[in-house]
């Protein structure tokens, strides 16, 4: 009851004209910046932080929260329309989002993305309202062994996303795993797999690789196919039908819950949660063969997971002062600039501020929907722009996007290289997702594994089996692996029987 009263008080403040205006501006600017490839929520917050300097602490944090949400959503727009994943969390969205855009269904994809983000964001804010301190405490029980086990669980996704051949998928994953190790090593700071090239000392950046393998490769293929526009054929409905909403609703809920739970864990990458949500959705679907070809659930699940993660990230931030992700670290910096120390005392010493921000997050979610749904039609029409105009624009945006990650021309070169590689992957029907997934997870796995072994009294991997959460996750990973391999084998046998009968 006390929580409800405080929340109502927060709404009273958040619904003031100035706070409403600031929330809207934050969401709008965040979406605009998030749309630009290579610029994710961290960059958006860092770039727009100075704008908040003239505002009061509460108003500034409201604006920053709006920027955060907006940027998370904005990244999905280019992922769906142009196959350019603006950030790690958008990679899973490209798999079905872009396929839908090519079928003239960019509108429903974008709309479901917005609605899913709203649904999941609302779940997250409800969780934040009622369960913040309790959940934050539980999240602290996750240490390096638990994270390492979680990443191993995520790696099992490679099996179900490896396309028609498991072995090709595993080989692609192996390449991704190895390429992620290029650079300066964690423990000895020796160069690893750099072969004397200084430029490789900084490693290979994930965004540059993803932009190359998805967007640049797609452009090369489109040139080959003499495509007239992104959307092949007429654009269909601009908004999802009732059937689309009915199909995607369970995916939104599941994705939102997965994203929320994972988002509580400090350091849990949104890329990991989006892929997990995608894979789980594929596993429970009655038509898993549709995934990767324009299944609307394949957009709803990762987008909901993405927004669920971003909302849940505020819980460890406010309750414990631990930023769950780089954008929230920037937000933490913003809080500290205004003299607000996140942590258990924040709720007691600055309760009005906390509840106003929580209330504004509800409002921000609604604004995200109100702002972006009407724009769906405009964005969707972009897919009919002649390819001769879109392709050069996309290529230049890819160049700018990959450069802007680390201000490095070498990353642009990497984008080109992986664009060519991605083209050959597509030509030979090799799966790209296991490559990207392993590439994304290897650094996290190595770091948490090293930390776990250092923690262990015996200095051996036994620690993973002596901690209950870690053990549970490993058992779950093994179970998922067995199930995934059996499903994959069954599909391989069915497809080879089908090929035999046709012959």
């Amino acid at each position, binding site marked *: 009851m006390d929580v409800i009263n405080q929340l109502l008080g927060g709404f009273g403040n958040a619904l003031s004209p100035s706070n409403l205006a600031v929330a809207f501006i934050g969401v709008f600017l965040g979406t605009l*910046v998030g749309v*630009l490839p290579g610029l994710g929520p961290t960059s958006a917050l860092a*770039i727009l932080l100075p704008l908040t300097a003239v505002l009061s602490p509460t108003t500034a944090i409201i604006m920053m929260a709006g920027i955060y949400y907006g940027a998370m959503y904005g990244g999905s727009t280019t992922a769906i329309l142009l196959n350019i994943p603006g950030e790690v969390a958008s990679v899973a969205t490209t798999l079905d989002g872009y396929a839908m855009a090519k079928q003239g269904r960019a509108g429903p994809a974008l709309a479901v993305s917005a609605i899913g983000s709203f649904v999941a964001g609302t779940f997250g804010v409800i969780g934040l309202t009622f369960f913040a301190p309790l959940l934050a405490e539980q999240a602290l029980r996750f240490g390096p062994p638990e994270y390492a086990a979680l990443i191993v669980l995520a790696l099992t996704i490679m099996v179900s996303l490896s*396309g028609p*051949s498991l*072995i*090709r998928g*595993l*080989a692609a*994953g*192996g*390449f991704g*795993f*190895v390429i992620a*190790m290029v650079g300066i*090593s*964690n*423990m*000895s700071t*020796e160069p*690893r*797999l750099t072969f004397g090239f200084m430029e490789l000392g900084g490693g290979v950046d994930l965004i540059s690789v993803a932009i190359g393998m998805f967007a*640049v490769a797609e*452009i*090369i293929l489109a*040139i*080959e196919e003499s495509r007239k526009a992104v959307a092949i054929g007429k654009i269909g409905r601009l908004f999802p039908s009732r059937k689309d909403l009915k199909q995607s609703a369970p995916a939104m809920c599941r994705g939102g819950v997965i994203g929320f739970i994972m988002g509580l864990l400090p350091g849990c990458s949104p890329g990991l949660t989006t892929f997990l949500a995608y894979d789980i959705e594929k596993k429970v679907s009655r038509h898993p063969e549709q995934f990767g070809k324009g299944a609307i659930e394949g957009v709803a699940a990762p987008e909901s997971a993405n927004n669920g993660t971003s909302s849940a990230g505020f819980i460890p931030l406010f309750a414990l002062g631990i930023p769950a992700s780089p954008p929230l670290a920037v937000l933490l910096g913003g809080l500290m600039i205004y003299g607000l120390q996140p942590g258990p005392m924040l709720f007691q010493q600055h309760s009005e501020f906390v509840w106003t921000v929580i209330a504004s997050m509800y409002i921000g979610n609604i604004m995200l929907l109100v702002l972006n749904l009407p724009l769906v039609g405009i964005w969707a029409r972009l897919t009919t722009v002649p*390819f*001769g*105009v879109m*392709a*050069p624009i996309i*290529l*230049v945006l890819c*160049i*700018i996007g990959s*450069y*802007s990650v680390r*201000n490095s*021309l070498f990353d*642009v*070169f990497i984008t*080109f290289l992986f664009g*060519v590689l991605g083209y050959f992957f597509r*030509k*030979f*029907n*090799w799966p790209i997702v296991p490559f990207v997934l392993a590439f994304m997870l*290897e650094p996290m*796995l190595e770091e948490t*594994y*090293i930390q776990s*072994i250092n923690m262990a009294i015996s*200095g*051996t991997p036994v620690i993973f089996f002596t901690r209950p959460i870690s053990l549970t996750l490993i058992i779950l990973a093994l179970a998922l692996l067995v199930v995934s391999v059996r499903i994959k*084998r069954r599909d*391989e046998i069915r*497809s*080879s029987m089908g*090929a035999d009968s046709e012959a």
Partner: protein
Amino acid sequence: MVILGKVQFIDRVAGVFAIVVGTICLVEARRLYQYRLPGVLLGDDTFLTFGGIWLLLAGLLMLFVSLPGMSPVVWPNREKILVIVKTSIVFLLFVFLIPYLGFAITTFAVSTSFFFIIGRYSWYKSLAIAFLFTLCCYVIFTVWIYIPFPRGLFGI
């Protein structure tokens, strides 16, 4: 999955490549082993060894196991290959020219070339569209967001 059945040529190539890369990883892991701290059970070579073995096994399987899901590859005709090659050259030219010409001029030149090569627009149209596009990129990325692109010899 049929062992020793008809293995696709490209799978064999990929298998050999995987074995080569896996071997390189193991050699590199051996080099890094000496940098392990004394008394520590793992080092920077640990995951490299794991990755190397992973690739070796995958490579061997690809060499000897017939894999499903391979359809005949249709390559583009000569004309399209030329367009792809020209586009690639222009893409790479961006990387090499921008330190000298700066972001604005390089983007303008590269966009014009892309519109001409891919879009098959006339030079005049390509120049006009590229000018508008470059202006937008300059305003958004350089003026508003302050991405520190090289300014080149002309300072723009």
